[in-house]
């Protein structure tokens, strides 16, 4: 089926391989045909369309960049990024869902897990027979996760975990949580380890975060762990210190840099077509200088964001990616998308506040994306440290 025409002012199309384009178009078609028709209603109802999860699994969207032997498609990073772009063209919520499952749950198991853990969990997670979440943030430790106070204490051949996690995407839907806890002294971020915790274990309670004005079609929850016991083989054996958790975040941020471009594309396309059709003072508003410049600014920033994401992906595929580059792309592209969404909403006038149009939904969502996975400010400080050699934080 034909897909909404893509937005490509600088012929980035020609920089993609045939497979990369095919991957993008497949996910794009799915978003157009199955996701966009239902998202408005879900957003108003405040629920994630979980009935679509099996379709995403059939497409192979979970862990799409992971090895075939775990039931995944083994795509390169650019193709993976294009999946994120297309999903977030739909809604940041569905992109977050897939990001968490892939980059924050499957990735740590692949990277820090034992072979038994991989064999057990990865195929299940790829088929979405298990849904995962990632618990790092706590009520008192957001930008500074190294301070976290969730503890895991060894008791015989079990670990006993106590603590509270906040703002956990997929928290209430999840069958399994990757929980980051300190195994040693609370002052020692080096003692942070990752644990695979099934959410039906005694003492594990997930509570939906109420009152959100952003990402309404996504599950964000608080997790309370009280004396939750897991066998020793639930520890991710190769996780060591905060660094491991940050490596996961780097994977997810990579996807966000692409996803934000998708959200911005949706808003620009909506704004352009609205401007061409809405007539005021006997002329389409696209015929006025102010609206033309508004559209040009949007398109220019999106084009820069596309090229940034693409080069980020090529570097990642060459194994030359530096974390400062991921920070820059996440920071730039999400901020860009926030601006584009806001301008699009304004261009749409009163219609711009309705859920029938997409821009305000994206605008509200992107405020979360701006904050999570390292806030805009924090990514600035990461790059700042990289170029000056001086940490503004520690």
């Amino acid at each position, binding site marked *: *089926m*034909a*897909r*909404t*025409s893509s937005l490509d002012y600088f012929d980035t199309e020609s920089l993609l391989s*045939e*497979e990369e384009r*095919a*991957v993008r178009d*497949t996910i794009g*078609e*799915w978003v157009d045909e199955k996701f966009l028709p239902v998202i408005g209603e879900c957003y108003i109802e405040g629920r994630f369309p979980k009935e679509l999860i099996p379709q995403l699994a*059939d*497409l*192979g*969207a979970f862990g*799409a960049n992971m090895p*075939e032997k775990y039931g*995944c*498609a*083994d*795509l390169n990073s650019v*193709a993976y990024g294009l*999946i994120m772009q297309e999903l977030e063209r739909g809604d940041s919520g569905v992109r977050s869902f897939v990001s968490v499952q892939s980059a924050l749950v499957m990735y740590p198991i692949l990277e820090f897990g034992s072979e038994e853990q991989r064999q057990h969990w990865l195929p299940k997670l790829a088929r979405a027979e298990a849904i995962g979440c990632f618990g790092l943030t706590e009520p008192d430790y957001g930008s500074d996760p190294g301070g976290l106070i969730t503890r895991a204490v060894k008791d015989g051949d079990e670990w006993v975990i106590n603590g509270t996690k906040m703002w956990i995407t997929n928290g209430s839907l999840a069958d399994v949580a990757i929980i980051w806890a300190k195994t040693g002294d609370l002052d020692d971020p080096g003692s942070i380890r990752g644990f695979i915790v099934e959410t039906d274990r005694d003492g594990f309670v997930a509570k939906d975060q109420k009152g959100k004005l952003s990402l309404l079609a996504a599950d964000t929850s608080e997790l309370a762990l009280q004396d939750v016991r897991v066998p020793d083989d639930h520890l991710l054996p190769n996780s060591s210190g905060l660094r491991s958790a940050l490596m996961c975040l780097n994977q997810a941020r990579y996807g966000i840099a692409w996803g934000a471009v998708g959200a911005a594309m949706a808003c620009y396309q909506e704004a352009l077509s609205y401007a061409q059709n809405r007539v005021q003072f006997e002329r389409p508003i696209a015929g006025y200088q102010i609206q033309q410049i508004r559209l040009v600014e949007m398109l220019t920033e999106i084009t820069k964001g596309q090229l940034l994401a693409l080069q980020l992906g090529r570097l990642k595929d060459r194994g030359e990616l530096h974390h400062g580059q991921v920070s820059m792309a996440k920071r730039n592209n999400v901020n860009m998308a926030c601006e584009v969404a806001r301008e699009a909403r304004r261009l749409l006038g009163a219609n711009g506040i309705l859920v029938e149009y997409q821009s305000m939904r994206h605008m509200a969502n992107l405020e979360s994306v701006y904050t999570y996975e390292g806030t805009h400010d924090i990514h600035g400080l990461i790059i700042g440290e990289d170029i000056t050699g001086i940490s503004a934080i520690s």
Partner: protein
Amino acid sequence: MNIIVCVKRVPDSEIRVAIADDGKTLDSQGIKYVLNPYDEFAVEEALKLRETAGEGDVTVMTLGSDDAKETLRTTLAMGADQAVLLKGEPSVDGLGTAEKLAEAIRDRECDLVLFGKQAIDDDNLQVPAMVAELLGLPCATVVVELEVSDGKLEAKREIEGAHELVRFELPGVVAAQKGLNEPRYASLKGIMQAKKKPLEEVDVGTVESRLEVLELKKPEERSGGVIVGEGPDAVPTLLQKLREEAKVL
């Protein structure tokens, strides 16, 4: 059950096309090409028949240039087993195309040949029936339901104001109409496997064309409409105008 599906690469219907300077062809600049939408139904049906039978082979075939390989790989990604590219320029003359397809199909063992009922670029609706004729096979066009058992095929066809049920013994030719099924998405794994599946290239020489395109013209721009009023009160005027001015009733 071995099935051959004939497909065509066509311009994406969502893209606005321009006419080239020669006034007879499309300007290929900026055109995005896709698998002909009706052929998607044919591919899907072939895959379903193979899955139900639990055995057999789905071969996808196209007459086209090297670019058409991308279209073939789309069908391989959906699940077809192998593809054949008949290298040549598809003719606007359906018979030229049909001759090449029939020749290639004749050499292969197959129980069923599937087509989309028409290609959305030329809209000729010729090739399936012509291939059937050239091969001396029965043919059911505009098919919305299909069942195969014991070497017999039953097809429900859409005809004006009714459905027609036909039956023939395999082998035969079927042309798919929208509604036959819901085509699957290629899976991401399928996309990656597609490039490892066999894609045979056959040189078929010049495709004969007994038909010449003289000119390609865009329909005239529509002029602005008329608002005849609002609510139920406007209905009589609307009906009158539709009857007397637009003459569509």
